[in-house]
């Protein structure tokens, strides 16, 4: 196999390799991980003609500067980041042809929080428990650094792009509303709190990460802890102190805090693109039964 290599000139604020995640290992305490914004992840692979679960680079807030040792094809989807190929501006959401030694620079995001860089054939990095998603304590590296050795398959057929009709719809980036179903402990909130949780604007806290998205301020409540119960990405936990946590892709499998809301899949894409200090509001969604 002809292997291309990517030199990481600067790694960006927090960049990782992600795919669709680890399945079948939750019972051993292994989080699912995978791309936070699954929509952008799927689109970037689709535009490149990759398999849907090929590994991509997830970029947070401000991106890396990368140099490619061989020619290939890349594509960038997700948040609205400044993109430059050899100092010339290039467009997201379409295939970018890379030549040997080209330098690709991903700047800061103007809108959105996470961007996804896909590459023809997917990034070739360490596979642990059937996934390339980086996770601290599981993969040797849990974020990209200057020393990360990142490879790609340079032999991939650069067939004509059959997916030019695929369009990345970026309207969700501007959405303030986060559709959320009542969670298993929603009914333990008072009637007043049940209304209030859907009427309050919450501001994202800087402490948010792939494990949990957190908010400024407190949501007053008198809920007690529950006996350890299952949680999944998108579960909204209410801590006795009043802190709300929206669990992310790297969350654990069980938790002891009341699960007041559960995000829809769409809502998870929206909130994954929110930066600290962005305002969100939960919007009530009910199951059709």
């Amino acid at each position: 196999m002809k292997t291309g290599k990517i030199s990481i000139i600067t790694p960006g604020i927090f960049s990782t390799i992600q795919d669709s995640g680890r399945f079948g290992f939750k019972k051993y305490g292994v989080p699912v991980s995978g791309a936070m914004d699954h929509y952008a992840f799927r689109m970037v692979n689709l535009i490149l003609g990759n398999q849907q679960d090929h590994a991509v680079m997830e970029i947070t807030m401000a991106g890396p500067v990368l140099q490619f040792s061989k020619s290939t094809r890349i594509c960038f989807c997700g948040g609205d980041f400044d993109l430059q190929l050899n100092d010339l501006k290039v467009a997201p959401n379409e295939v970018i042809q890379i030549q040997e030694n080209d330098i690709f620079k991903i700047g800061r995001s103007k809108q959105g929080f996470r961007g996804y860089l896909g590459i023809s054939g997917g990034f070739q990095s360490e596979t642990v428990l059937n996934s390339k998603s980086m996770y601290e304590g599981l993969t040797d590296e849990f974020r990209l650094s200057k020393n990360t050795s990142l490879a790609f398959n340079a032999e991939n057929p650069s067939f004509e792009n059959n997916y030019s009709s695929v369009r990345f719809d970026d309207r969700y980036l501007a959405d303030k509303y986060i559709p959320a179903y009542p969670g298993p402990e929603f009914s333990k909130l008072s009637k007043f709190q049940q209304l209030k949780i859907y009427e309050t604007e919450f501001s994202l806290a800087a402490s948010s990460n792939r494990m949990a998205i957190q908010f400024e301020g407190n949501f007053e409540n008198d809920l007690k802890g529950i006996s350890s119960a299952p949680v999944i990405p998108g579960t909204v936990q209410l801590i006795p102190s009043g802190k709300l946590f929206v669990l992310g892709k790297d969350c654990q499998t069980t938790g002891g805090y009341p699960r007041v809301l559960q995000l829809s899949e769409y809502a998870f894409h929206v909130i994954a693109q929110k930066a600290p200090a962005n305002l969100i509001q939960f919007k009530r969604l009910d199951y059709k039964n």
Partner: protein
Amino acid sequence: MQDKFFEISQLGEKAILIDFLEKEKKLELETILFYRNLLEDKLFESKVDVISAFDSISIIYHTTIENVYNEFSVIKLLLSKANIDKKNDYKIFQVPVCYHQEFAHDLSEIASAKGITESEIMAAHCSAIYQINLIGFLPGFLYMKGLDKRLHFPRKKTPRKLVEKGSVGIAENQCGIYPNNSPGGWQILGRSPLIFFDKNCVPPTPFSAGDKIQFYKVTKTEFHKIEKSVSSNDFILKWEYENR
């Protein structure tokens, strides 16, 4: 949707939650695990993760559930037809632990707080048979019940920045094993030379929820000997089925 002993509901668009209602009877771990294993077995082809907790189970699908009513009825049928008398047969593992002061960071403190000797703690810790409640918190971290009442002790007020891989600890009424170096607040009684989580193996750990562990005491010399044979793949972890 409600049935006589469980309630089934959606948890978002990719998961189903089963809450068991026999709370007043206090569900036994065995019962929950029985249902967990049954669901995992029977739903194998749907590619799901089945997670059991204290009195509930979640079934997590890899993609959005298309026909949730269909899934509900499959699960309801499985659970109501299940023959709960057919209990799982769990493994009992023999796990070496060394209580040398180099590893047993909190042993002397617990001994003086409790007014019992360190040897009494070791003896009580080794004589119990523990059952794995849950694997979580860290990949491969074992939460176990069965700790001798005399050893119940709260977590550390300030967690340690580093608890070493293999550390065996206690917190309240539980016993736990750290599979890797990690920050942590459990009171550390000793250390095992075994590997509890190997990311390069599928499955990554020989232990499952429900399995049992009995500790046996080893000296520091034996600890290093076992550690060496573990790393060269010569160590054989002893276990047997409980009821065979």
